[in-house]
């Protein structure tokens, strides 16, 4: 089943209000007009956002609240000679000045990262990246705190910096992590996957081998809301409450418990409305810790909210992968092998957020959507004098890098063989009968029909007509622009993950969920995952509605407060629906099972004699002998005699441990026009066919895809955090870290195929990151197709395009020219 938006007319198409979920029966409507189950439903959370009543961290105002600000290093690498805080302390509105020396007395100068490394909270020895935290001022108001930063006198002794990862392992490279005992170089790890010997064999026998170096530059998630926190250590109760921008409230609480030595029940993490996350709000930043210490020292609540430059320069970046790819094939275009060597720049501290067993995230899914005889990857990660991070910006734990690599390599191969890139892909895609499919690097893809998705994307695009148009344009000597058509086919593994394989800091990646049906038949669902705009309050209510027949408007979804939700690892890696969505469905099914027994007791029949019909159990063959879920809820809380051993009330608690990852996939095609005179790229069309299984709320799914496509346009054409030789960050504001606006984005054309996951209770696969993962390659491939050049690195700014046309591609991630 497919649905398609026609370009240019989408704004005027009347939108059906009813259920339109593919793969699911149309849900009946509630009295309020909402689908009691899957289908297009307007979002419950919109009411507050539209009125300016959202509650973001910076909106939190507490009596007596003080304000913090961070002093940051102007140097990328420098020893701290001295810090003089006396003038700042003398400022009449300053309540505390905190330095690394102060934190050392509390044993808080360093904190663990999510990858088993340590990270400086406030610097005690030397700064290791520009923007690193050096001191924290607490004052009566934000402006005064900022004033006081100017009064702190820090003497630095600058050191040579490692900025280009390719030089990090040079014998004379400065040692960045001299704080780690026994360390003599900047290497973090070597890691490999696949079969190197089998790969060598395949490559030695292949007709054609194509190699290509490419950089996936450092970019930044840059959610519109920056990171921040309001910490309040209540001196009387000894309870710490922290309102903070976190995608993983429970994981943060556990980390605070470990670092601060406080028991979990004395820490409440509240993640209120979050203004976008994209992985930027997974880690714990020094500012959060400083606001807590500030509150402990002053006895008052302390708010810290970073500004945009602080966000771009010091919080979790994404990518920074330097890849050398090799692809082997027959002359007829049968792909045989793929191998890749990666140099991964992790910055000054290894602070990536990903399952412990996989130091390079899920990059080893780099074989993508094709069949191979062999594949191998080697990843070497290094420290550099740049901000820490690496896994962020909707990357599905590095699958963005993997998809970019394979989809660029396939295009390079097509170029080498003078084949059409769509035909080459079609020839090599995994076939439906190959699922479940085990890849050469050990992933087990659950389900898919890849050729159907590519066929659908080509149909929407009018692929043959586009190629004809392109040929005509190329033949026209007077044309002022070059037209390019780019494809990308992606497979993601999301929903991390099975506890036996996946943990973060030893915490298994399962998620809890509590469902409680009140006596009147209304319900509350408490989740461990945290929306940053994904619309969980709506989608999760629809999941329960689908299972129990309770109208979604009668189901309250609670999240973002560790005191009021069960434990779980939070929202990133597109894991909410695959993991917590399953938890909600299983909880609802347990409630349903119990409701059947209660209905049977009340109707004085056997549970086996009952049949379920949209929210009620009735006696088989007699629809009038029935109990609705609301009636059953009242009975469960009432005086009805329940079967032996059954407790009253109607609720369920579930911890869902996913048996496997889910594997959404899609086929993307972009059409671009490149101005011959200026090198400016205009994305004319973008066709995205996504298969994420059945869509709980198609409106929300499409919105997620739209947002991811804009991200892809940004990364492919505009966004980069670049550095000068001394480590000076030249992407530290929105003046030079360019985000796509309405003018750079086209009207997207979406399609879908539906292949349910066989192991997810709802068959759904997750979609949050699909478009960000899949789209950059499609745009880059299109631009290079227009230019008829084999490779140039992102971002393809007009200057980069122009240089590439002169045969002089440069490293766009470095400002060193």
């Amino acid at each position, binding site marked *: 089943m497919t649905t398609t938006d026609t370009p*240019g007319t*989408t*704004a005027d198409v009347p*939108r059906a*209000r009813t259920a339109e979920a593919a793969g699911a029966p149309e849900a009946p409507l509630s009295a*309020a007009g909402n689908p009691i189950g899957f289908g297009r*439903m*307007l*979002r*419950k*959370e*919109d*009411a*507050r*956002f*539209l*009125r*300016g*009543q*959202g*509650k*973001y961290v*910076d*909106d939190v*105002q507490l009596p007596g609240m003080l304000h913090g600000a961070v002093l940051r290093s102007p140097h990328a690498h420098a020893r701290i000679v001295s810090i003089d805080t006396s003038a700042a302390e003398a400022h009449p509105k300053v309540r505390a000045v905190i330095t690394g020396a102060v934190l050392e007395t509390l044993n808080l100068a360093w904190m663990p990262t999510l990858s088993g490394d340590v990270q400086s909270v406030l610097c005690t020895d030397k700064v290791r990246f520009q923007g690193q935290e050096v001191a924290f001022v607490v004052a009566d108001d*934000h*402006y005064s705190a900022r004033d006081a930063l100017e009064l702190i006198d820090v003497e630095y002794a600058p050191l040579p910096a490692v900025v280009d990862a390719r030089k990090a392992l040079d014998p004379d490279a400065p040692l960045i992590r001299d704080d780690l005992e026994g360390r003599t170089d900047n290497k973090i790890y070597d890691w490999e996957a696949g079969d190197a010997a089998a790969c060598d064999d395949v490559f030695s026998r292949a007709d054609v081998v194509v190699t290509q170096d490419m950089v996936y530059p450092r970019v930044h998630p*840059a*959610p*519109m*809301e*920056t990171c921040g926190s309001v910490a309040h250590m209540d001196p009387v109760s000894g309870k710490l409450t922290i309102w903070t921008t976190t995608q993983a409230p429970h994981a943060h609480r556990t980390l605070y418990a470990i670092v601060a030595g406080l028991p979990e029940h004395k820490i409440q993490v509240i993640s209120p*409305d979050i*203004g*976008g996350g*994209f992985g930027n709000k997974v880690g714990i930043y020094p500012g959060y810790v400083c606001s807590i210490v500030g509150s402990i020292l002053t006895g008052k609540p302390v708010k810290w909210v970073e500004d*945009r430059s602080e966000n771009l320069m010091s919080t979790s970046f994404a990518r920074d992968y330097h890849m050398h790819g090799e692809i082997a094939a027959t002359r007829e275009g049968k792909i045989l092998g793929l191998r890749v060597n990666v140099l991964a720049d992790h910055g000054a501290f290894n602070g990536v957020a990903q399952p412990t067993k996989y130091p390079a995230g899920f990059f080893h899914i780099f074989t993508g959507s094709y069949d191979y005889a062999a594949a191998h990857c080697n990843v070497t990660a290094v420290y550099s004098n740049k901000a820490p991070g690496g896994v962020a910006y909707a990357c599905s734990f590095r699958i963005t890098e993997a998809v970019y690599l394979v989809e660029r390599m396939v295009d390079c191969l097509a170029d080498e063989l003078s084949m059409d890139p769509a035909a080459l892909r079609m020839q090599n895609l995994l076939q439906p009968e190959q699922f479940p499919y085990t890849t050469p690097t050990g992933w087990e893809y659950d389900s898919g029909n890849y050729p159907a998705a590519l066929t659908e994307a080509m149909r929407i695009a009018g692929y043959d007509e586009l190629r004809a148009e392109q040929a005509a344009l190329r033949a026209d000597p007077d044309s002022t622009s070059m037209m390019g058509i780019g494809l990308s086919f992606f497979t993601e593994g999301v929903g991390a993950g099975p506890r036996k394989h996946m943990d973060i800091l030893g915490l298994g990646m399962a998620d809890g969920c509590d469902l409680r049906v009140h006596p009147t038949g209304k319900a509350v669902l408490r989740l461990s995952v945290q929306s*940053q*705009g*994904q*619309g969980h*309050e709506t989608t999760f209510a629809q999941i329960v509605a689908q299972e129990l027949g309770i109208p979604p*408007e009668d189901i309250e979804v609670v999240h973002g407060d560790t005191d009021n939700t069960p434990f779980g690892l939070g929202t990133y890696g597109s894991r909410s629906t695959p993991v917590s969505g399953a938890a909600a469905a299983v909880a609802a099914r347990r409630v349903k099972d119990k409701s059947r027994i209660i209905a049977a007791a009340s109707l004085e029949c056997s549970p086996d004699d009952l049949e379920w019909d949209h929210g009620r159990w009735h006696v088989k063959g007699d629809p009038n002998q029935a109990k609705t879920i609301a009636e059953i809820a009242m009975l469960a809380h009432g005086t009805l005699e329940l079967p032996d051993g059954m407790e009253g009330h109607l609720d369920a608690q579930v911890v869902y441990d996913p048996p496997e990852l889910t594997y959404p996939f899609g086929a993307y095609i972009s059409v671009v026009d490149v101005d011959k005179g200026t090198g400016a790229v205009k994305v004319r069309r973008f066709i995205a066919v996504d298969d994420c299984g059945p869509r709980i709320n198609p409106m929300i799914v*499409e*919105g*997620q895809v*739209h*947002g991811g496509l*804009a*991200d892809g346009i940004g990364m492919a054409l505009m966004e980069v955090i670049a550095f000068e030789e001394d480590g000076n960050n030249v992407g530290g*504001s*929105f*003046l030079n870290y360019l*985000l796509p*606006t*309405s*003018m750079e*984005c086209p*009207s*997207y054309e979406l399609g879908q195929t539906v292949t349910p996951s066989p192991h997810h209770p709802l068959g759904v696969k997750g979609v949050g990151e699909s478009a960000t993962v899949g789209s950059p390659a499609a745009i880059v491939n299109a631009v290079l197709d227009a230019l008829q050049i084999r490779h140039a690195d992102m971002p393809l700014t007009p200057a980069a395009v122009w240089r590439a046309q002169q045969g002089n591609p440069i490293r766009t991630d470095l400002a060193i020219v």
Partner: protein
Amino acid sequence: MQVTMTVNGNEVTEDIEPRLLLVHFVRDVLGLTGTHWGCDTSNCGACVLWLDDVPVKSCTTLAVMASGRSVRTVEDLAQGGVLDPVQEGFMQEHGLQCGFCTPGMLMTARWLLDHDADPDENTIREAIAGNVCRCTGYENIVRSIRWAAAHADGAEQQAAPATDEVTA
């Protein structure tokens, strides 16, 4: 120093530092936190409100510059509990996700529709080019504003099912 201005129809007088930005004035002094702040460089538009009926970036406007003038924020869009058609449009067409850019988008959109009742897609895209959204890819924001243009009389919104009322 003392400033007096009209904010959402009410006269307010406050003692403020001359350097106080208008965005901080409305948020921190008046508690109108619907107006957001998202950058240091006047690039993102999260802070857009109206100053004398013109959308401005309040992060680059001093509060004193609003002295004697009138300010309108997102909190003033809904009247008597009824959403403005642009607000209704954003709900109907899923023009928001995290909601952080939304107040600025709404204020820009309202101004556009006041000056061009029937803008085409390109006009809308140009009008909101100073408002960055990181979540929606703009597609549904354009649709939302088109929806508002098509329902300018507000008739539809009265009839619209009250998803609103559920959580309001």
